[in-house]
């Protein structure tokens, strides 16, 4: 019985680890698209950028702002149109990924 439990636990740990890695990759891949304006990994690489770095911002802040753009609550030149292309889980994955990047 003890043995059965540990096998189950091991399988569960392995499953969640794989799922977490896949989710990280999903967030990474979605967020990579943003780099054309927001910089590689959300780090601003240019002088005089009008944008703030996304890398290391709190996850909830990024997700809230994306939803505010999407729902027309925060005005923008471009982000109100772009944010409409992302679902809630996608926004959460992008936000988690940028939040985890070093500033």
């Amino acid at each position, binding site marked *: 019985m003890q043995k059965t439990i540990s096998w189950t636990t091991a399988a569960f740990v392995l499953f969640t680890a794989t799922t977490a890695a896949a989710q990280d990759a999903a967030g990474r*891949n979605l967020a990579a698209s943003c780099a054309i*304006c927001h*910089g590689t990994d959300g780090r601003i*690489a240019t002088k005089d*950028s009008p944008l703030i770095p996304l890398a290391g911002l709190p996850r909830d802040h990024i997700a809230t702002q994306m939803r505010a753009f999407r729902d027309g609550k925060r005005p923008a030149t*471009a982000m109100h*149109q*772009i944010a409409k*292309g992302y679902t809630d889980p996608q926004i959460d994955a992008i936000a988690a990924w940028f939040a985890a990047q070093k500033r």
Partner: protein
Amino acid sequence: MKRRDFLKIAGALSLAGCAGTVPSKARVVIVGGGFGGATAAKYIRKWAPAVDVVLVERESAFVSCPISNLVLAGYSSMPEISQDYDGLRRHGVQVVRDEAIAVDAAKKTVRLARGGDIAYERLIVSPGIDFSFAEIEGYEAAMQAGRVLHAWKAGEQTVALRRQLEDLRDGGVVVLSIPLAPYRCPPGPYERASMIAAYLKQAKPRSKLLVLDANPDVTSKGALFKKAWADLYKGTLEYRGNAKAVAIDARSMTVKLEVEDVRGDVLNVVPPQRAGNIAQSAGLITHNNRWCDVDWRSMESRKVPGVHVLGDATLSAPLMPKSASMANNHAKIAAAAIIEQLSGRAPQSDTQILNTCYSFVSQKEAIRVSSVHRWDAKDGTLKPVAGAGGVSAARSEAEGTFAWNWARTIWADTLA
């Protein structure tokens, strides 16, 4: 040991990896160091440092097509739009200055013009465009005589066109001819028209720009471009749709359309385009003798297994422009997929990328178009997400600031 032998042995060693992790010597060869190829090189090294990346590029420097129209007006310069490949070398990319001339997909080798054969595990071909000069009678002879320029690959011809505009007498006529879509950078010709008109208005106010478009109407951001032209360049810029160039007479400096001839002092005729030459010799072309169809979840060729095609050379997905932003994002799809494939896993299938293209309409004002493209399993392609994307509310200096931010940021994301 000869270099080619060394590369062959290194390639053979790379077969010894096991599923699950990237084999320690897996090599990805990338042909072409533009927005697609350079981004792929950087991101593969960044996301999987164990992978050996060789970038084959025939030029010593990258010259950006985006912003090159501003060079024509004197608002930017060649040094500003040019960069070397040292940034990629710092990521551990082996940059080889050579030209790929053939691919043996069965043996998994690329033949270089000077360097022999290189073996690969996965190959990325990001060749940009080449021109179908033969579709415009007399084009090549006129180009060799210096009587017509395309300047649709930034570089020598950008400099030459700028010089011709500077040498133009006040009261002269510039002809800009646009090919039928699809071509590289849908809004590019209209940005160019705006930049040439801005220069003429300021430096040679009695001169005129005639825009001859093979398409029935402006193909991208039409309302915004036309408003800018009406507000800013009335009397300088004249636009004609359904005006396809079929021949050029260099002696009389005439562009022949289907129904009339148009004479100019400067002829900037952008020819019809197709995937870059190596796509042809590698057998990657699938449609209209021009473009390469790919699986958008991995950018792998639908014709040649193990070979990924990026950027302008691809058969575009619905409403997807041939743009620098797209090439850069194609590269990230390919990088992620190749790392999975080298590890013995299938690529992820929830692909989604976004496009943003800015165009300047005056020295400081720009307009923008954005779209989001998501994998559609039913139709097996990337499709624009309904309700997302759009264009600028109006031209503005704010969009101009964002346009410069985009340019400098994508250059860094691609090359640094």
